[in-house]
């Protein structure tokens, strides 16, 4: 009796397994993400995009792998915002989980630590949310960066824009974290070269809880432009305290923060006129319908607009990967070849890599106007004119 039961059960099990095989194995796509720790807030706008894309692929009947549609499965681990955990996670994804494709982690340090893994296993990865001149030192081959936010070009473009606005003096205050420091290093000489007097040039710690002393100095310097090289938490602090102290410079720039939807929601009308870095806005009609569709799908799924910087970059990396896989299939070497040489259509216009960089996209600036983010620089892709705050 027992034997008979066992045989039946085994037969049943084999049938189920056989059916699963017939229904096509999913394409396994792996990545690590900062689900907890200090980067969790920033990384959220990337994770949401990955989830949106997974749903979109499912709705389209699967991922086009060299002409054949296959289901996908996301495999991910939390890197706890610790860059040293990223490389082991990607090694595990490649050797243990045996994933077919890899997506990028969040942030510059994570990208830098994943680059050697990509090279070691000859596994192509399209990066997204990284921005540093250090990326140019990454040996080209298996990783690419679609962003145009390199601090040296941010500095030179900023100097050009300020000069055009007739700005004569500036105050620069910077967080001591790496990306802000890199920007400060390039910005000060660029401003001075453009004939803009830098009256205040200071740094502050990341855990700053009161900016009053710093902002009091800035107010007394009475400058035309206030440039705050900030991260999200201190961007919020600047907004609250500059309101109290009454900083009225016509040009006010915050590095990271204003592109996060919560920022505009928190400050309402008072946020109007704030400038930040960025190269994408759904308001630029020349990137429609892709950009519009993405924004609408994202807003519908998550009940808030996407982050115009990180969410856009994350989605671009997925568009590039999807188009490359449709052409080359899952063979790593063919895939690498296609990503390195083809031109891709994205929500931010065409992307083509030269080495690790996407040189088709210019460095730009966004400004909050009437509650939305408009591209105000460079003129070629601007959606609105810069307005004094």
């Amino acid at each position: 009796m027992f034997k008979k039961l066992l045989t039946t059960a085994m037969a049943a099990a084999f049938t189920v397994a056989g059916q699963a095989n017939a229904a096509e194995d999913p394409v396994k796509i792996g990545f690590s993400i900062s689900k907890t720790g200090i980067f969790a807030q920033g990384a959220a706008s990337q994770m949401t995009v990955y989830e949106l894309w997974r749903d979109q692929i499912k709705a389209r009947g699967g991922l086009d792998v060299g002409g054949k549609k296959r289901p996908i499965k996301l495999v991910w681990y939390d890197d706890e915002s610790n860059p040293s955990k990223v490389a082991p996670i990607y090694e595990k994804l490649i050797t243990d989980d045996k994933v077919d494709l890899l997506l990028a982690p969040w942030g510059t340090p994570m990208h830098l630590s994943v680059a050697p893994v990509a090279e070691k296993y000859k596994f192509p990865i399209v990066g997204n949310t990284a921005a540093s001149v250090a990326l140019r030192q990454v040996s080209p081959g298996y990783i690419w960066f679609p962003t145009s936010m390199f601090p040296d070009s941010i500095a030179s473009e900023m100097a050009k824009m300020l000069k055009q606005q007739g700005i004569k003096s500036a105050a620069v205050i910077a967080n001591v974290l790496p990306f802000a420091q890199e920007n400060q290093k390039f910005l000060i000489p660029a401003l001075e070269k453009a004939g803009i007097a830098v009256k205040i040039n200071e740094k502050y710690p990341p855990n700053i809880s009161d900016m009053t002393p710093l902002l009091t100095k800035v107010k007394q310097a009475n400058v035309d432009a206030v440039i705050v090289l900030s991260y999200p938490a201190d961007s919020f602090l600047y907004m609250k305290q500059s309101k109290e102290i009454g900083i009225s410079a016509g040009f006010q720039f915050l590095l990271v923060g204003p592109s996060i939807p919560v920022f505009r929601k928190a400050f309402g009308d008072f946020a109007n006129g704030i400038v930040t870095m960025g190269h994408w806005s759904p308001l630029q009609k020349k990137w429609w319908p892709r950009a519009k569709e993405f924004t609408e799908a994202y807003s519908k799924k998550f009940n808030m607009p996407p982050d115009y910087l990180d969410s856009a970059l994350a989605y671009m990396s997925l568009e590039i990967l999807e188009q490359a896989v449709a052409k080359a299939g899952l063979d790593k070497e063919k895939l690498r070849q296609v990503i390195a040489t083809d031109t891709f259509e994205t929500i931010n216009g065409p992307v083509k890599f030269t080495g690790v960089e996407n040189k088709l996209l210019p460095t730009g600036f966004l400004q909050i106007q009437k509650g939305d983010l408009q591209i105000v620089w460079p003129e070629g892709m601007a959606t609105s004119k810069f307005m004094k705050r």
Partner: protein
Amino acid sequence: MDAFLSGQLLFSALVIGSVYALIGLGLNLVYGTMRLLNIAHGDLMMLGAYTSFWLLSLVGLSPILSLLIAALGASAIGAAAYFGLFRRQIEISGPVEKLEANSLLLFFGLSVVVQNLAALAFTASPRAVPYLDQVFRVGEISMTANRLLTLGVALALCAATVIFLRANIYGLAIKALIQNRDAAKIVGVKVERVQLLSFMLGFGLAGLAGVLLSMTEQISPFMGFPFTIAAFVVIITGGLGNLTGGIIAGFLLGFIEIYGVVLTSQNARSIILYGVFVAILLLRPQGLLGGRRVVR
């Protein structure tokens, strides 16, 4: 140097100082009466801040009303912690050094549990309560309403606590317990009841401080720890268990923080603050006003 004389800085120093004084006061009440080192003090503030955030965003309740609700809620947690964890601990720990060490570990555990439960329940995303953010200008000083409210409420609470300790029978009993536990017992102070009261008062003040901070700071499950450290610096500087000393030390540290930064740079904040702290401890190890108290 112009910046140094600005009234703006004076206002800022007073606001920071009053917050330090308030959180120090809550911690000092629990330490002074029972020798319990409440390392979870900042986490109770965090709970107060979330109370204010959720009540405002879900039912539109003003943080001013949340002050009362958070204070009552935190006091209830205080009572629960007293009966559940610490009453027995105080009885069985024997020498005071052992009680201090045990309480430190217990509160540390409580802190970890509370932080992580909050992270699970509320997620780690920082939140903010945009409330009372209109700006008043008096002469050259401009003040955001919520910071002005923080200053007013914190000052009033410090004053009320000091008056309570001097004028009310239970307040006097708390002071008696701080001064000499055994003598207080002998003269008929109901130690149990006074301990419970201190617990509730200390925790309640932390909850209140959390609501005040919710209007000016970003709220996250891990926001409490820096304030716990600040509170310890304040009460050690003022003299452990010396409530007036703690209040003075809170304001002193607020002024040192703001004016020290103006004279040097924002990056020097921690160096100046902790430099002064270490210097005070070297010169007066018992703290500014400590030492007159007879330790049991």
